[in-house]
């Protein structure tokens, strides 16, 4: 499944002279992480979208081969045509792959650098547990300078 999704991602976001392609953005590690962290239904949707991408070259290029067996030129043509296909559900299925792949591609430091944006910091999923004391020092908050006041209820009604 990973290979199927990877193949569709690479076709949708190929390397060009101006920009890194998705294969330059740690795609394999991203897909493993995405499969682990996303919900089952979302991952299933992405796999289904990749499957649609793989089996539809006949209707976009007239070639009865799966997308991953097409030449680079034909695969590129297929990627553009299936992502803009008149049949809504085909377009939407591929859109899901495009969305997931876009999260990998657009969030990568190489791509952000190409757009003069700083890299994102590491972001492990963290949250407040039962044992954490409420911390007023989250971020460099200014909320202590403008805290919620506590007028008696009914004061304004």
């Amino acid at each position, binding site marked *: 499944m990973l290979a199927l999704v990877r193949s569709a991602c690479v076709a949708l976001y190929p390397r*060009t002279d101006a920009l890194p392609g998705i294969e330059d953005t740690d795609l394999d590690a991203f897909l493993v992480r995405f499969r682990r962290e996303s919900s089952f239904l979302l991952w299933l949707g992405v796999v289904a979208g990749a499957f649609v991408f793989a089996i539809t070259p006949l209707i976009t290029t007239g070639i009865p081969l799966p997308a991953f067996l097409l030449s680079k030129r034909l695969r590129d043509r297929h990627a553009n045509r299936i992502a803009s296909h008149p049949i809504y559900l085909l377009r939407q299925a591929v859109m899901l792959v495009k969305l997931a792949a876009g999260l990998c591609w*657009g969030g990568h430091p190489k791509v952000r650098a190409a757009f003069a944006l700083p890299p994102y910091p590491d972001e492990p999923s963290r949250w407040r547990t039962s044992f954490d004391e409420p911390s007023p020092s989250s971020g460099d908050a200014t909320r202590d300078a403008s805290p919620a006041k506590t007028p008696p209820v009914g004061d304004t009604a």
Partner: protein
Amino acid sequence: MRSHIAFRTEPVELEADYVVVGSGAGGATAAVTLARAGASVALVEAGAWRDPAHYPASAYGAMRDLLEDWGSQVTRGRALWPIVQARTMGGTTVVNSAIAVRTPGDIFRQWERERGVGGDAMADAIGRHQDAIERELSVEEVPRGSLGRSNLLALAGDAAADYQGHVMKRYVASCAGTGQCLQGCRKGRKQSTNVTYVPELLRLGGDVLSCAPVHRVAFESRRARGVVGRFVHPETRAKGGRFEVRARRAVVVAASVTHSPALLERSGLKSPALGSLFRAHPGTGVFGCYDEPVDMNVGVTQGWATTKFRESPGLKLETLAIPPELVASRIAGGGTALMERLARYRHVAMWCHAVRAESCGTVHNGLGDRPVVRYQLDDADMRRFRDGMRLVAELHFAAGARSVIPGIHGMPFELGPDQVHLLREAPLDPRRYVAILSHLFGGCPMGKDPRESVCDGDGRVHGVEGLVVADASVIPTNLGVNPQHTIMALARHFATRLVQ
């Protein structure tokens, strides 16, 4: 007592005067209002509690950590349009742009005329509550230095085209202009309820449960007695221990427009109006392409808006910045054609519209406690939708754009100034558009008549005791402006009436 209870594997039982379900604009405001009156309050939130230091920076992280089901909830209708809602302590106040717009006066007159609630008395009360909320949550205009080039271009276009727009007022103390509103403000400047009202509730002795989705409201005879559910681990989604929170006086439901009606439905509430009058602000963005770099992600995410078109044709126009990873899927095409389009990212500004749509849908409980939303726009709303895109395109050209990218399937990818008229005849099929639903309303609409409404003008559910709804689901019409200010003021109003 003062406690925060996050994911637990063992059972938890609590009791309080009031149990509030949901910690977003409605729930947190209601909870803190009740606590300020001296009541004991337990706040129950389905998502995890993340502080600004915990917020992700990327869109990937935001979808994983802050949004409901990775933002994958969509409407069922002709088109599958995403519904953006948060699932985190603070609810959608964490991931929105914190835009504060007062409830338009005509809304109260409309509610009085059509629903038998509202009127001048409610308008006065809501106005006073909004005064107080603006003081408490540091509502201020976006500082000029934080606007960024996209918003400055919109101001210039507005001046040229006379759109009568303005720099937004937001619940943000000294905006740093990091362009990260949609991922949560890591600088902590946004006054979302997880950094304001919920901590205050704890200070006032309240109890807060996080990672605790409520499965149902428990009733004894015709009186709401509490809520029950099971903890869910925010990372693994594993089920934890059962929790039961009993309410001595009342249960306040503020779980969102999609979850509140679904929760009441699976709790056995019988009302012919439950799940009805679902409305929204469907919207989409139009990219303007400029000769000079715009760098829309530098500066505040949203800084300019106009309500000039609110009454006719029924639109709100705003600026909006989204990061490259979201632009990548928003731009049409694939392969090298897509990459060539994306190469211009620095030169595009995305401005959007929100349609004051009159089409109504329904919300009902689905499998696995997931709400099911059936909704689609009628032709009149689709005409508004495309009118809005044309107005945004014309604003771009007034600001000096060389071309615009409307993103309508079947139309040219890019339009020049002499092609804007094509948008007047754009197709009315919603499947041709990439849109999202923001600003949801209804599902538990308020009104005088129990046959047509779920709750009365104080949010009290018809026909049962001790059950109040205090979120946007009570709003029976489309406001045509950003709803957070209205939701907060209504919740404060309902809570005040509850303890009086």
